[in-house]
C-alpha cells in the first residue's frame, strides 16, 4: 500500500463521515422518542427471544433460553405476554413535568399530533438588563422573542413550538449569546453559535 492509496481511504472516510445525505431531519429525534415511549413492552417470551439478538448472553445460552421460551410460549399461547403489556404513555401520562425541570422535560407537555406545544424557557441571569430567546424557530432574530423578568429575578417566556428538535440560545443585553446552562448542548455547527437543544414531544 502506498501513500496515495492511503489518501484514497482517507478521502472515502471523510466523504462518508461528512456526507449531507446522512444529516438527520431535525425533528427525527422527537418522532423517534414518541415511537419509543408509545411502543408496547414486548411480551415475556418475545424478550427472551430477543436475548438471542440483543447481546448479554452467549449465543449458546441464548439459544437454550430461546428454545425454552418457545416451549413455554407454546404452552401458554401468549397468555404471559398479554398480562405484561404496559399501558401506552398517552394513557398514563407518566412523563415527568416538574417545577424546575429542564426545558427538555417541560417540553414534554402533551399536544395533538402536530400542534405546537407551549414550551416554557427559564433563565437565571439576575445581572442581565434584557434577555431574548433566539433559535431555529425564529431564525435567530434577536429581540423577536423577549423574556419577561419575574420578581425573583428569573427571566421567562413561553413559546409555541412545533414538535421536534430545536436549537436555541439566549441573547443577553442584545450582544452576548449564551447557551441554556440547564439544557443539553447542541453540537450543530450550522449557525456557528453556541446552542442548546430542546425536544418538543407530540403525542
Amino acid at each position: 500500500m502506498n501513500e496515495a492509496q492511503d489518501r484514497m481511504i482517507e478521502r472515502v472516510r471523510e466523504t462518508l463521515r461528512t456526507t449531507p445525505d446522512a444529516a438527520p431531519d431535525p425533528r427525527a429525534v422527537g418522532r423517534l422518542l414518541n415511537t419509543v415511549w408509545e411502543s408496547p413492552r414486548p411480551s415475556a417470551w418475545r424478550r427472551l427471544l430477543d436475548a438471542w439478538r440483543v447481546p448479554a448472553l452467549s449465543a449458546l445460552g441464548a439459544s437454550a433460553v430461546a428454545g425454552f421460551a418457545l416451549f413455554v410460549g407454546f404452552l401458554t399461547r401468549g397468555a404471559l405476554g398479554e398480562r405484561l403489556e404496559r399501558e401506552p404513555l398517552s394513557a398514563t401520562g407518566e412523563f415527568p413535568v416538574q417545577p424546575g425541570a429542564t426545558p427538555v422535560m417541560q417540553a414534554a407537555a402533551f399536544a395533538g399530533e402536530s400542534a405546537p406545544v407551549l414550551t416554557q424557557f427559564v433563565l437565571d441571569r439576575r445581572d442581565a438588563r434584557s434577555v431574548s430567546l433566539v433559535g431555529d424557530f425564529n431564525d435567530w432574530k434577536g429581540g423577536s422573542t423577549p423574556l419577561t423578568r419575574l420578581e425573583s429575578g428569573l427571566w421567562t417566556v413561553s413559546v409555541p413550538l412545533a414538535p421536534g428538535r430545536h436549537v436555541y440560545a439566549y441573547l443577553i443585553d442584545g450582544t452576548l449569546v449564551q447557551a441554556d446552562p440547564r439544557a443539553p448542548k447542541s453540537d450543530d455547527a450550522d449557525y456557528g453559535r453556541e446552542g442548546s437543544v430542546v425536544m418538543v414531544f407530540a403525542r
Partner: protein
Amino acid sequence: MNDTPPGSSIDPTLPLRAKAGDRQAFAQLVDVMYPRSLRFALHMVGNREDAEEAVQDAFVRVWHNLGRFRDDARFEPWLFRILANRCRSLMEKRRRHAMVIQYGEVPERGGPPRTNDDRDWTEEIYRVLATLPVEQREAFLLRHVEDMAYEDIAAVTGVGLSALRMRVKRACDVLRARLSEVIRDE
C-alpha cells in the same frame, strides 16, 4: 494505523440513568447517538427510509432491553450491535432492492452546496460500498467511519480480531482498486 478511537462522546452515566427509567437521560442518549446511528444505517442499507426504520427499531429495542445492559459495559458497542442486527434483518427483508441505491434528497443544512464532482465522487463510493459483502461493509464502516477500536467491533459483530482485520483490509482493497479506476477514467 492507530487502533484506538477517540474517546466516547457519551456521558457514561446516561445509560445507567436510562436503565433506571430516566426518560430524559434516554432522550439525551438518542440525541447524541442518532446522527451516527443514522449514518451507519444509511451506509449499510443504502436508502434513507430503511435506515431510519432500522435506527428506530434499534432504539425501541434498546429502551426495552436496558434492564439487560451491564453496568460495566460500554453503550456504543451495545447499541451498534443491535443496530447492525436490525440493518441485516432489513436488508434480508428487502433483498430484492439490494442493488438499488436510493439515497434521499440532500437536506439543506448550511455549508456550501456540493459541486457535481463532489456528488459524482460520493455516488461512486456508494456504488462500490453496495458491492461489498455485508460483513466487509459493516467492518469497514465501523472501523473507518465510526472510528471504533477492533475490540469494540468484535463486540458488535461477534467476530474475532484477525478475521475483522482481514474484512477491513479486503474492503479497503476493493475501494482503492475501484475508485482508482474511476479517477483514472476522469
